[in-house]
């Protein structure tokens, strides 16, 4: 039989039960034996005394006839009686001879006695010397034998019941456990073979196995989500890298086939290099996304001023806005300390402004604002008055390589908002899209450093200082000369 923890446990309990039973029975048995022995000796002594009294009153002949009468009338009961002369030759009694090994001295002994009715039995006897006669008085054990037998039967039966019940319970438990373990094993092998949809069967009860099962199912959910994500990403990579690679390949192949004049060849080579650069850009963006998703960048967190960071980003994009005659304005309620990765936050904000610039109409407006939302949260918002995003598309824009209808014909690979989303997630922030009719507002709400612990030691700016520092800065297009 297979080694089974359930079975070994059951057998262990059986052994423990038997031990306990024996420990309980042994003193009982001992006490019982001692009590019986004491009681018997007293009875024997009383019997002997009575016979001695007869001897004293009626002499040896009287005693002999007394014993004879009793034996004859069969009122001796289970008594063993023997009267012998000084040479231990029987005069009368219900046993045939003086037991072997029994000394002819007064006292209590345990000897083997050959009785007519029950054969040889170990019996407690009392020996008394009456003049030159020896008297042996005993009691047959048969009176107590059934009781003792019952005791032994009881003990044996108890042990047997305990063993069988233990074994049965062990087997049943093992069976029940094995069936659940086997179903878990089957599910897991299915998962190992690649079918991640399987889940372990779980019941509503809260036993140990179920708790474990539910935890494992939770883990499987997470794994499936991640694998799904990875699969999505690799599909998107395949799709999005394939396009520029295909362009590159056909460009080079055409060059090799047609062999155009040098001037045109160089132009094509430049275009090919640009194709490769596009592939590299996509690669870099994906690597960075992977890096952020893996949470590796949290080591790069430093205390920084969100207003500083945002105003620098606005300043960086201001000339580009100016070129499109878009009014890019900034409002900063600072300083606003947060804990974050300055490079990633700048890139995320840059992507948002860049997006807004792409979609805001000529002579449009983009508002970037950094505000303290509460004592523990800061908020960056980028609002444009472009076409906005349809509700049906809102959930999709954070997906990798997703490009909305409105983005056709604009440069970009569809990773910008994915990066913003990943950066927000890394910073434990909430990213919301809302309509501005017309336009889109992207709001990033992140915990401020004052709440995050690191900045807790810094004194919070007093309300007066905060309002004094609230300086709306507007980067309006300078008149072009």
């Amino acid at each position: 039989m297979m080694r089974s923890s359930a079975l070994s446990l059951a057998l262990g309990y059986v052994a423990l039960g038997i031990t306990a039973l024996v420990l309980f029975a042994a003193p009982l048995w001992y006490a019982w034996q001692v009590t019986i022995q004491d009681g018997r000796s007293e009875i024997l002594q009383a019997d002997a005394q009575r016979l001695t009294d007869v001897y004293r009153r009626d002499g040896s002949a009287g005693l002999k006839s007394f014993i004879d009468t009793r034996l004859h009338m069969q009122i001796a009961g289970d008594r063993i009686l023997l009267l012998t002369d000084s040479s231990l030759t029987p005069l009368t009694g219900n046993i045939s001879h003086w037991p072997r090994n029994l000394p002819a001295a007064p006292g209590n002994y345990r000897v083997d006695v050959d009785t007519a009715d029950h054969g040889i039995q170990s019996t407690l006897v009392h020996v008394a010397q009456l003049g030159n006669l020896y008297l042996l008085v005993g009691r047959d054990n048969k009176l107590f034998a059934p009781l003792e037998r019952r005791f032994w039967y009881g003990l044996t039966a108890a042990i047997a019941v305990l063993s069988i019940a233990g074994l049965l319970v062990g087997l049943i438990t093992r069976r029940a456990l094995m069936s659940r373990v086997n179903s878990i094993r089957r599910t897991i092998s299915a998962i190992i073979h690649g079918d991640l949809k399987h889940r372990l069967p779980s019941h509503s009860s809260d036993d140990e196995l179920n708790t474990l099962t539910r935890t494992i199912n939770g883990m499987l959910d997470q794994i499936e989500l991640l694998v799904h994500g990875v699969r999505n990403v690799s599909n998107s990579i395949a799709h999005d890298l394939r396009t520029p690679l295909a362009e590159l390949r056909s460009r080079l192949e055409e060059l090799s086939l047609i062999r155009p004049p040098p001037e045109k060849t160089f132009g094509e080579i430049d275009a090919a290099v640009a194709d490769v650069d596009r592939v590299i850009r996509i690669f870099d963006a994906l690597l960075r996304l992977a890096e952020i998703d893996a949470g590796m960048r949290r080591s790069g967190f430093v205390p920084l001023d969100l207003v500083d960071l945002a105003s620098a980003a606005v300043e960086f994009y201001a000339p580009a806005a100016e070129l499109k005659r878009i009014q890019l304005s900034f409002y900063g309620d600072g300083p606003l300390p947060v804990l974050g990765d300055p490079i990633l936050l700048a890139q995320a904000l840059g992507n948002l402004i860049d997006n807004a610039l792409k979609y805001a109409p000529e002579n449009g407006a983009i508002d970037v604002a950094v505000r303290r939302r509460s004592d523990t949260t800061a908020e960056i918002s980028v609002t444009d008055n472009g076409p906005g995003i349809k509700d049906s598309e809102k959930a999709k824009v954070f997906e990798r390589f997703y490009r909305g209808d409105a983005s056709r014909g604009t440069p970009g690979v569809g990773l910008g908002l994915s990066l913003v989303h990943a950066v927000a997630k890394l910073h434990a922030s909430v990213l919301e899209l809302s309509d501005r009719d017309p336009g889109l507002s992207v709001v990033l709400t992140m915990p401020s450093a004052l709440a995050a612990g690191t900045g807790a030691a810094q004194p919070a700016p007093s309300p007066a200082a905060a309002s004094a520092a609230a300086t709306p800065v507007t980067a309006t297009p300078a008149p072009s000369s």
Partner: protein
Amino acid sequence: MKILLVEDNERVSQFVIKGLQEAGHTTDHASNGREGMFLGASEPYDVIIMDRMLPGDIDGLAIIEVLRKAGKHTPILVLSALSEVDDRIRGLRSGGDDYLTKPFAFGELLARLDALHRRAQGVNRESPLTVGDLHMDPMTRKVTRGDRQIALQPREFKLLEYLMRHADQVVTRTMLLENVWDYHFDPQTNVVDVHISKLRQKIDAESERPLLRTVRNAGYMVTAGE
């Protein structure tokens, strides 16, 4: 310039050596860490190009640390296929002066080598800069072109200062992003070009000879030459 290239990939090495030769530089090549360490420690070079991942037991960063401990201050450009910002920081912390991710454009490499070389020659941060009739005084923050005074916003000033400190050298967009804005990411759109054209309007618009030039497929250059 005399340049040491420590790089194990033959193709990349040939490409770099040929390019540097055409740009008028002499290049020594070491294809493993041991050789690279030996050459770097014994020969006087203007710049060292160091690949991070090298075959054998000595990698690029280890060589840099040894050279720095030995008192060699030759500017080192670290080349790597690892692009994560943390790796970049580790590369610079070990004593490298600049970091370039593979694959790279040769123009980018050349521009960065020039910048490193110039920086190593020592510049006085406070001395006035002059390119043709364009003058800049970092102390008073005054910029003039001929007799005309030019008003620049702080970031424009920083941009022009960086370009003028690297006058007659190609400066790439990435170099500008990193050094003027401290942005270590690709902003996708041509924002740098817009900044440059805005700056160009201010310094070149009213002059016959443009000083701020675009170098095709590479970047920008401030020069008074032809």
